[in-house]
């Protein structure tokens, strides 16, 4: 996993609430068995059907920070939503509320999802819409988002922060505790079901 410490980039203002993962990447793009190349599926319907959709606008090309409305990532658990955002070039998503599974998936996969008050999101939208060249900095070291006129701390638990800063794979971390897992298995109730 790629490390995340401080990222600075231009931002895309996505003024919509309840952006579900079916919108982030429609189901038809989930049929692949590969792990990369999902950028064509990102917001595919909106990109196809609405020429004015933010990602179709030339001034937002090459942006790497997504500033989204509340309840971003609701619905299906598809991690393809995270992959599509990353494959397209986004490093971080800012919102006042994320759906749980999407948030978990993003932080496992190295896409930093940052929770900010809606009032700060509103200010970022205004700043970026006024000048699309505006750069937004997401600083995981100091847990702070900075942009012209904005300096806002954000919360992220120490463990997740450390994992992202180090770019550590969760499975390798857990496999350090194989003995604990084996001991736990000794205590499982004998009548619990098995599938084989």
């Amino acid at each position, binding site marked *: 996993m790629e490390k995340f410490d401080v990222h600075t980039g231009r931002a895309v203002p996505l003024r919509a609430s309840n952006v579900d993962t079916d919108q982030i990447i429609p189901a038809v793009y*989930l049929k692949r068995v590969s792990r990369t190349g999902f950028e064509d599926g990102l917001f595919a319907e909106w990109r196809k059907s609405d020429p004015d959709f933010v990602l179709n606008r030339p001034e937002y090309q090459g942006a790497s920070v997504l500033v989204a409305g509340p309840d971003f990532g609701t*619905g299906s658990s598809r991690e393809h939503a995270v992959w599509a955002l990353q494959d397209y070039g986004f490093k971080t998503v800012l919102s006042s509320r994320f759906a749980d*599974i999407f948030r*978990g998936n993003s932080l496992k996969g190295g896409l930093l999802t940052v929770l900010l008050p809606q009032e700060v999101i509103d200010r970022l939208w205004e700043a970026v819409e006024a000048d699309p060249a505006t750069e937004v900095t997401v600083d995981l070291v100091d847990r702070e988002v900075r942009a012209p006129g904005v300096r806002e701390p954000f919360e992220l638990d120490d463990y997740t922060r450390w994992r992202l800063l180090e770019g550590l794979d969760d499975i390798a971390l857990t496999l350090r505790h194989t003995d604990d897992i084996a001991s736990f298995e000794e205590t499982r109730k004998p009548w619990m079901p098995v599938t084989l």
Partner: protein
Amino acid sequence: MARTMAEKVWEEHVVRRADGEPDLLYIDLHLVHEVTSPQAFEGLRLAGRPVRRPDLTIATEDHNVPTMDLLAPIADPVSRKQVETLRKNCSDFGVRLHPMGDIDQGVVHVVGPQLGLTQPGMTVVCGDSHTSTHGAFGALAFGIGTSQVEHVLATQTLTMAPFKTMSVTVDGSLKPGVSAKDIILAVIAKIGTGGGQGYVIEYRGEAIEALSMEARMTVCNMSIEAGARAGMIAPDQTTFDYIEGRPHAPKGADFDAAVEHWKSLRTDEGAEFDAEVVLNADELSPFVTWGTNPGQGVSLDSEVPDPASYEDPSARAAAEKALAYMDLKAGTPMREVRVDTVFLGSCTNGRIEDLRTAAEIIRGRKVADGVRMLVVPGSMRVKEQANEEGLGRIFEEAGAEWREAGCSMCLGMNPDQLKPGERSASTSNRNFEGRQGRGGRTHLVSPQVAAATAVRGTLSSPADLVAQ
């Protein structure tokens, strides 16, 4: 200290607890399907890791599978490849698979409980958000992403951030024609699609206790539509009776020992929840959605709401956008909304009781002209049972299409899709834009409303048929 059921199940599964780190939890059952697993198996292969507990893992094919012409190869080459990949992965890693043609093939959340694999007090995960279904047994069950699927395959554990607890108490009793689906749609409309965020919900109260096991699954299934991590219902005699005798249920003295343990899982007297919500079942009526998220629902007796009536500007904008997409006008009575398609099925409402309920309404009647009704059983075993009970014939005689098992039009990954502009009444769980097919418009409904709507061609309740 008095504890909730969710806290008890969590505590029983802590493998490792360390300061400043999330708990490492043991996973008792891992359900696998073709869409969210290929990259996880590939990850294992690349790292040279085995599946730690194939005996706690089970797979089936559901999201992509066609629901007709099962003997022909899957027409879509990409879908076919994904199904073939699952077959190879299960074979390579020693995981039991119920493939197309197997009597236990079907929607993964129908198959687990039907086999008796889902039991109270277990931790159950699957790379699918509707894993919350299994919480109906008093299991802690949640949807996970593909990285976590790989983590569970490799370690049989997950690191989990702590959750908050919410009780949703439903007092009173449901009126005839009102169902579990209406309870959960009303809950979501009340607390919103983000209202459950960070919570494990425990559904309780008289109306919940009166529900059958399958109806409880319908309620827990849609916990995710309220944003919750999971939904649970305390196990009781209804639960034990449902499990007893199923292929993977404990037998004899083991069953008695299991029941003793299961009884201890109930939330203690005096345990406190972080949030509490109360509904009265007597006040509920058949519920339908009008918008493009599951929280945008109203009583069938009501009208399409006016976006101007929302004070919150973001909710108002969402309502305006939804009405434009759904091609609906504020003030239109919901009963006047005409549909082209009725979909009866999915992990929400594709079980035998759902089919019985709908068949009872549709028996001796015809699907309205110009309406297509798809009936898709949740599993091949459900289909077999429905045929034995004569339900399949009732659907066919009414003019409905009686299909094979799968997720089907719930998410339209297989050929069962709405065409642009088509409108459905659907017993599934999501009315998102394009969910059932590009440009398709979805109204979420109960099996009762689905059946009545198929007959009348407009959103209807069974009571409307009697009046006819």
